[in-house]
């Protein structure tokens, strides 16, 4: 009988976890955002390939985070990795919503990579690296930074929703992957000048961008794990507000840079740059969205977009081919986000505490953590990609790359010609109205 139950505690717990589960659903949907952002940004001959990769990320992530990842991240163990709850065995019931939420994070970290290595990665190699990221590389970083036992958490730094833990890990892995894989054929001409390889459908990119922004809002808001303390709701709302401000600051700044900067692009109002800028804004506010004022969020987002544009330019100069700018967005903005957190945090930052030693220590600790995370990810992912490359499992053959991956590997061209066209003579440039009238008389 429910009327005699001790309600308060129960409702508090339930509310928190129900909140996780629902927001987790929205974050889960973000996978679709990545998939379409990437699908629209590549050529039509590789569309099925990129879609199946993004879909498989969801499943591989679920299985490997269930089997190993969660244990390494949140099982009790050493300050460096956890050793409990493999296959979720022995996990207390209250851990389930926690698993669900962190699984969608893990899947995000590994999905980021697929954009950077698009159009040339072998499917087998993809299956391997995706499992290693969600089972090993990412969980260890999570353990350091977010598990009560992790060594980074002992310090005073903070990364609220994963500027470094999720986005830097994804971004650095993208960078090492793209570097080891080498550019797509035709991306740079003989003189090393970059040639634009446009994506085949801008609307799909926009669809992906919209879904991603939606999902990332959920991502940040959902990172407020406890919403039932006094004022928990308002803090969650503050996060949403800050995310909106950073997103706007980023998107508009990138848009204006592209339009006004003489050396970048054709001075056009670019949709793709605008979307990447707004993503960079959200990525950078992850670390601090619960503890900055909206004006600071706007500023952080604007700077993040500038950082994204610069990183993108640098990578291009270094002849690293990243079709989605994944490294520039996630690593570039992620690094800035972790640095911005101890500067703008309205409780503990340098400016708000009057340059105390503690606030400088927080700043230093964030930098140290960031360095360690980048180092760890760079080394492990570098080794992994190096080995894959060494054994010839990383890149498809030249013929397949030139002709496209969809047909030989997946047997499913994205837009089979045979499925197009009707028999009503509408396919030429006939006047639509006339042909409708023609038809009615029939």
């Amino acid at each position: 009988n429910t009327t005699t139950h001790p309600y308060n505690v129960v409702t508090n717990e339930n509310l928190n976890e129900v909140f996780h589960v629902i927001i987790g659903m929205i974050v889960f949907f973000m996978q679709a955002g990545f998939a379409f952002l990437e699908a629209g940004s590549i050529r039509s001959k590789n569309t099925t390939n990129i879609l199946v990769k993004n879909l498989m990320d969801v499943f591989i992530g679920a299985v490997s985070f269930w089997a190993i990842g969660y244990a390494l991240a949140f099982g009790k163990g050493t300050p460096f990795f956890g050793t409990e709850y493999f296959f979720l065995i022995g996990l207390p019931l209250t851990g389930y919503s926690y698993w669900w939420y962190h699984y969608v994070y893990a899947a995000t970290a590994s999905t980021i990579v697929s954009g950077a290595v698009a159009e040339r990665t072998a499917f087998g190699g993809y299956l391997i690296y995706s499992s290693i990221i969600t089972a090993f590389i990412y969980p260890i970083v999570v353990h350091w930074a977010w598990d009560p036992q992790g060594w980074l958490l002992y310090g005073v730094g903070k990364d609220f929703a994963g500027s470094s833990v999720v986005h830097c890990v994804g971004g650095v892995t993208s960078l090492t992957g793209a570097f080891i894989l080498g550019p797509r054929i035709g991306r740079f001409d003989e003189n090393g000048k970059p040639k634009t390889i446009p994506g085949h459908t801008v609307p799909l990119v926009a669809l992906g961008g919209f879904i991603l922004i939606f999902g990332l809002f959920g991502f940040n808001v959902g990172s407020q794990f406890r919403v039932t303390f006094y004022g928990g709701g308002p803090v969650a709302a503050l996060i949403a507000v800050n995310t909106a401000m950073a997103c706007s600051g980023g998107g508009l700044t990138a848009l204006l840079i592209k339009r006004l900067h003489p050396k970048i692009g054709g001075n056009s109002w670019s949709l793709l740059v605008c979307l990447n800028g707004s993503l960079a804004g959200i990525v950078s506010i992850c670390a601090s969205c619960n503890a900055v004022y909206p004006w600071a969020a706007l500023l952080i987002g604007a700077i993040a977009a500038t950082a994204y544009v610069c990183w993108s330019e640098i990578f291009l100069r270094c002849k690293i081919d990243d079709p989605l700018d994944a490294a520039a967005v996630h690593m570039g903005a992620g690094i800035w986000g972790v640095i911005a957190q101890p500067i703008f945090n309205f409780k503990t930052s340098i400016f708000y505490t009057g340059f105390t030693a503690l606030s400088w220590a927080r700043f230093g600790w964030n930098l140290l953590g960031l360095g360690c995370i980048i180092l760890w990810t760079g080394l492990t992912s570098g080794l992994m990609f190096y080995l894959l490359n060494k054994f010839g499992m990383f890149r498809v053959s030249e013929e397949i790359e030139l002709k496209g991956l969809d047909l030989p590997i997946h047997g499913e061209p994205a837009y089979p010609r045979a499925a197009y066209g009707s028999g009503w003579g509408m396919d030429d440039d006939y006047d639509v109205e006339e042909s409708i009238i023609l038809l009615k008389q029939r």
Partner: protein
Amino acid sequence: MSTSGILIASNVTSTKNPWQLNTLEYNVIGIFHIVTGLIVFFMQTGFAFLEAGSVRSKNTTNILIKNVVDMLIGAISYWAVGYAFAFGDGNTFIGTKYFLLINLPGPGYSFWWCNYVYAATAASIVSGAVAERIKFTSYLVYSAVITSFIYPIASHWAWDPHGWLMIGVPGASYQDFSGSSLIHGVGGMCALIGALFLGPRLGRFDKNGNPKNLPGHTVPFVALGGFILAFGLITFNVSSYFRVNGSLDAPKIALIGINSILAGSGGAIVALFTKRLHPKLSNHWSLLTCINGLITGIASVCASCNSIYPWAALLIGAIAGLTFMVWSWAILKFRIDDPLDAISVHLNAGIWGMIAQSLFNFKTGLFYRHMDKTSWLQFGWNMLGLLAILTWTSATSGLMFLILKKTGYLRVSEEIEIKGLDVPIHGEPAYPRISYGSGWGIESDVEMDTSVLMLLPSDNEDNEARVVKSQN
């Protein structure tokens, strides 16, 4: 699913509630229903795009409007009679109260909302199997019949406290948590009957009866549909946990989410690898197979996702992925044309899901009770219920499709089928040629960069010159 929900619905009719905390609890429950119900509602988009991408471009508008209309017709018919048949008290066979929602007590509204989106799901499943050849009017009729009659009565049996399957026998009552049999089984069975009565699309089988591939026109739409369906179906399972106020209710909800995604993963990965590795198949890493495996996996743990361990969910999903491949092969062998594999996905998942539930349930399953008498009784009752539901569905939908066929309303004319439905019936070709192309000379395969560079400076000058002119 519905025990707790319906109890809430029937108990709380008083507007005066001395228990403020109770109010809070009821509100939390209501909000949970509504929000998750909204996400499940979004699943209609998933079905629409899964199907739109899988048909030929000449029938795209047709399949999209069907999916729009069935959620609208579903709302009206479930409001008018469907809910009354399903949850309007009544006898063991059918409900008899709350027609047009008249006199529905307050908490019943959120319950209606959730159940409406389930009913719309059951109806949507069918449209895939009958795609590219069914008449639009006939579609209007059958989606109304399914949501107002066939599905509601089946769900009355199994989910209403008055239903005979729910009452059960001493020691056993029907266990289908979120509708493996009730939603996917009913939808899949209607799909099978519909596909049987309609016959295959022209050109699907050659003279010797060998199948010919009729590929869908846009793989990205299929993928979009698949992603949205995964999002929606997981929420679907979660939302079926109707109360969220008890101790440890929330963890159980999370468990449902975990089981759903693991089952989906199992199904997708097994189907993918089977297609890749089985010597008689085409050895491709196939996206469509992967998506169908995913849906089959999630649908097959609907029945049991609240009461199995994650490893069991993975296993159930994996087996579902395998059975999907077998069903898909068998359906083709019988020369049934199902453009979306809706039968192999949903009917298969419905049947296997109910069996799996009786095996792996950690309280009543055969494996956990060491095959004692109670668990066999439970198993038997579940199978009986499944049989009853499928028989009911096939009989009623068979009758419906038979009448439609006899009156000539079932299938479009041969000319329209070959030339496509969009233009003559809907007047809206999905991709009108006339609206494509620009005047900037990018159309031909000119080198992109050059042409952009070539165009921009002069354009900007022209443009600015013109602005200046108009300002003067």
